């Protein structure tokens, strides 16, 4: 439920041109509401990952502004959790130490941080693997570690860059359900980048469809469905929403083709 008050963060006319001359974003306007689950949907190379990196402060816009409601400077915002496409774990460190990392970098001691690390591991159901090394885990488990690491700082915003794209369908469905449960429980804002229509419809309250090269917003869809579960996934409503979203996506890509 996007709050009626000020958006948590807004991008205004954000453009990004890389040193190679590639224009990833051109005049992107995007408001992210407090507590909402927002998906950025678009074909590969539409700049959705770039938009996410700009939100995180990992990349600077070439033009345009990023405004946080609380006035925090974008590059230094605390309270951001980031989940990459790959689990991006330190292979030399145990699951515990990987999840402890954000707190360690903030100068906290291991013993003091332990309860919070264990709580984060418990949230994603991997407490028993605290002392395992990443290579001993399956792809889905590694992604759980990655999510636990993002959650350990109790972020206001969770930014996710196609986190489940490399996983098999069974694991992906399970992680989708767990992610929704976490979002409900923790009341955080999630910005989820994906190229999967089905995933975006299943997860989001709002889907922003992007055009590619350069990336900008093509359309936005509200997904009004209170329950996200196996029943929803097989319902006629879900199928209809997927069809609408799919059409919006193909419009976004065909506009691009006509322009090109």
């Amino acid at each position: 439920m996007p709050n009626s008050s000020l958006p948590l963060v807004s991008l205004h006319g954000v453009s990004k041109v890389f040193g190679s001359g590639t224009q990833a974003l051109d005049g992107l306007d995007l408001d992210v509401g407090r507590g909402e689950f927002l998906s950025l949907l678009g074909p590969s190379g539409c700049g959705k990952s770039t938009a996410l990196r700009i939100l995180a402060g990992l990349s600077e816009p070439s033009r345009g502004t990023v405004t946080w409601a609380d006035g925090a400077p974008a590059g230094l915002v605390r309270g951001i959790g980031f989940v990459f496409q790959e689990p991006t774990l330190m292979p030399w460190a145990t699951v515990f130490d990987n999840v402890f990392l954000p707190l360690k970098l903030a100068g906290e001691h291991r013993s003091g941080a332990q309860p919070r690390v264990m709580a984060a591991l418990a949230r994603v159901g991997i407490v028993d693997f605290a002392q395992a090394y990443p290579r001993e885990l399956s792809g889905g488990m590694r992604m759980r570690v990655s999510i636990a690491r993002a959650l350990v700082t109790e972020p206001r915003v969770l930014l996710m860059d196609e986190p489940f794209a490399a996983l098999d369908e069974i694991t992906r469905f399970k992680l989708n359900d767990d992610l929704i449960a976490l979002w409900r429980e923790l009341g955080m804002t999630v910005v989820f980048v994906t190229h999967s229509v089905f995933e975006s419809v299943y997860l989001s309250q709002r889907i922003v469809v992007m055009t590619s090269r350069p990336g900008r917003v093509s359309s936005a869809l509200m997904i009004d469905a209170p329950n996200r579960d196996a029943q929803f996934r097989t319902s006629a409503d879900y199928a209809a929403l997927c069809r609408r979203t799919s059409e919006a996506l193909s419009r976004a890509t065909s506009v691009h083709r006509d322009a090109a």
Partner: protein
Amino acid sequence: MNERVLRIVAPVAVMALGVLIWDLIVRLNHIPPYILPGPGLVASTLVADWDILWSSLVSTVVTTLEGFGLAVAGGVGLAVLFNQSRLIEHSLYPYAVILQVTPVVAIAPLLLIYLPQQAAVLACAWIVAFFPVLANTTLGLNSVDHNLADLFRLYGASRWQMLWGLKIPAALPQMLAGIKIAGGLSLIGAVVAEIAAGSAGAGSGLAYRIAESGYRLNIPRMFAALLLLSVAGIVIFALLSLLAHLALRHWHESAMTREL
């Protein structure tokens, strides 16, 4: 026969066979010991000359370890310095390469003119051994996972945390590969310098013993000294392999045994 037993038994059997053939050739052809001593004579010379050979071995091994220690410190130190500053890297790297590609056999006599003998031998051991450490560590420090580096930035890691928490552990496999090569090379450097110095008539290391025994046509002692040098090289290699294995066994593919 299982794999482990085979790995020990097979090379030992090959060695036994080789020694047997060597012994037969010497006996059947009545080759005099000043041309080719039999294995039995080499062994008895090793026992008879043990005192003198042992002190020479200690001398060579100490030089090797000192050179190796300095090579590791210098190689890792320079690599870290290069990683922190492009200017220093561009200024110094070419000279590190020049030092490496100039054959140490040719440098040794010059060093012996300008440096006290012990220091010259040490310098040779260092020159040949430090480059692989430098080159491999540099490669390792530069191949850090970009997403992990982004993650460290996102959580506000300091330069120091970035180095100790991310770059050094990530570079460890390559660094250890360089160190493993450096172990063997520092022995070579020490031997080359000792031989160069030995022909000048001073020194006490094993290589000097070999050169000296050659002049005196004491061929059995040459073989005995060579045997000890070879054993020293094997021990250094084995210890460094063990170190690499212990450091990487939990997380790096190179330290894993895979079951098919």
